[in-house]
């Protein structure tokens, strides 16, 4: 029924292009701010103070243990009720906020995992040579942790590209939203396949880049 996938793609490619730009933009913003926030949260998780540590652990568990779509609805509809300051946020900002918070929980786990994966013997050696705890972290632990952290962060970006499709429920201009746009021209099934194809191509290309990055980072192991 109706036009073929190719006809739709050719006729409406600017719409899909704009949707793709939106998707990449939202994913980039979410992962960038998510990384900044996630780094702080991972510090909480690694803290020796039990209360601070608990806050970090609870934060990560709540955000990773509830669906992102639910988080979006809560951040858009209910946060403003609880904290009037969020009334100043637009719909786009509310949805982005939930993407950032969600991403930060995953990034916190990535960073925490990266740091704890560095053998404890490294710390012991550095400290016994008289390095301060801060110096040990910056000069010994982090440079090694970054090798496991970077590829995982890139994978988080790829995952986030798919997660942003939920923002289509709030009519933000990203790939999934093109479906709503074209449905009003009575094109209901073609956009689904086009969108799936675009997601697949983008994630495959990015995955290939990530494995290149992994190989590059592994060179020093040899």
């Amino acid at each position: 029924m109706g036009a073929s996938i190719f006809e739709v793609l050719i006729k409406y490619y600017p719409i899909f292009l704009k949707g793709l730009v939106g998707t990449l933009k939202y994913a980039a913003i979410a992962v960038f701010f998510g990384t900044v926030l996630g780094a702080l949260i991972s510090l909480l998780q690694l803290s020796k103070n039990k209360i601070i540590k608990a806050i970090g652990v609870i934060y990560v568990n709540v955000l990773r243990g509830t669906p992102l779509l639910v988080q979006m609805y809560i951040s858009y509809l209910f946060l403003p009720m609880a904290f009037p300051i969020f009334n100043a946020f637009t719909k786009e900002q509310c949805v982005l906020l939930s993407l950032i918070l969600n991403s930060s929980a995953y990034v916190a786990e990535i960073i925490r995992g990266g740091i704890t994966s560095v053998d404890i013997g490294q710390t012991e050696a550095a400290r016994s040579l008289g390095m301060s705890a801060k110096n040990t972290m910056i000069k010994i632990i982090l440079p090694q942790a970054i090798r496991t952290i970077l590829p995982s962060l890139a994978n988080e970006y790829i995952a986030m590209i798919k997660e942003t499709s939920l923002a289509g429920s709030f009519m933000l201009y990203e790939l999934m939203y093109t479906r709503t746009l074209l449905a009003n021209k009575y094109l209901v099934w073609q956009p689904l396949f086009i969108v799936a194809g675009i997601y697949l191509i983008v994630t495959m290309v990015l995955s290939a880049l990530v494995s290149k990055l992994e190989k590059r980072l592994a060179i020093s192991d040899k």
Partner: protein
Amino acid sequence: MKKLLVILFALLLLVGCGTKSDDVVDNEPVEEGGWVYEGVGYDALYDSLGKAEVDLSNADGQLAAILEKGTLVIATSPDYPPMEFPDAETGAIKGADILLAKYIANTLGVELVVEGMEFGAVITSVDTGKSDLAISGFGYTAERAESYEISHGYQADSDAAHHTILVPAADADQYNSLADFAGKKIYAQANSLQQMYVEDQLLNVYEGVEMELVSDINEAILGLSAGKADAIAFDSTTAINYANTSDGMFVSLYKEKGIEFDLSMYNDYAGNIVLMKKGETSLLDVVNQCIDQIMENGLYTEMYYAACDASGVDPTAED
């Protein structure tokens, strides 16, 4: 990398093969019946909308809050042309309801902010105070009247309120009245009027009727195309437009057989309504004055036709 290219190429071939297209079909709705729009056009009308004369000196509650913040925020679900739909090029939400909202915003002397979201979230957004008004092609129901302040009804002259059922053309012969839907599975949009009609007039009346709710009406179209259900409940304008653009795959039972839901049991039904939080009577008063004025001077009909033109919907198609 080479492998990747091979896979991509295979994928393209797959898509190419999967969609044999006999001839180029233009998906723009066909303008049957020779309806020609004669107005100034949607954008021009939007920019030149006037305002109603209302007394705002006694504003209180949310109305006062709107005047103070300088914006009127409306929630809408843009999957219902010509009432509300996104402009495919810009993504901006347009429609007859948006023109009405703009008129209300003009009257209040504030800026209009249109927030698009799923239909189910529209009312919640008014509940939580995130939006001031819900304007999304809502019709009257007793439940809505109980929980919200609801405005006077508005509808275009030609916009006869018929609600019907869309079925695959191949099955159309089976249906001669609503009773023939016994044992059938029907889609309706969650929280819509059609959901109420299906419940009241099919689900609770005939044996074995099954209703499946969708949040987005396009899911229902996909489901019907895939044979996952037998029919979709629609208002007749939307039904006829889907029928016209489906290359004869679907037909509107109102057009083919005159089958429609009986609306006489909902006495208060008169077009669409605007919803707002319970108790906001001074806001309600202003909205009602706006609606009364544009219904009286015919501006609403002009809005409706401009929105039809902008969305490619033929308002005369159901005849």
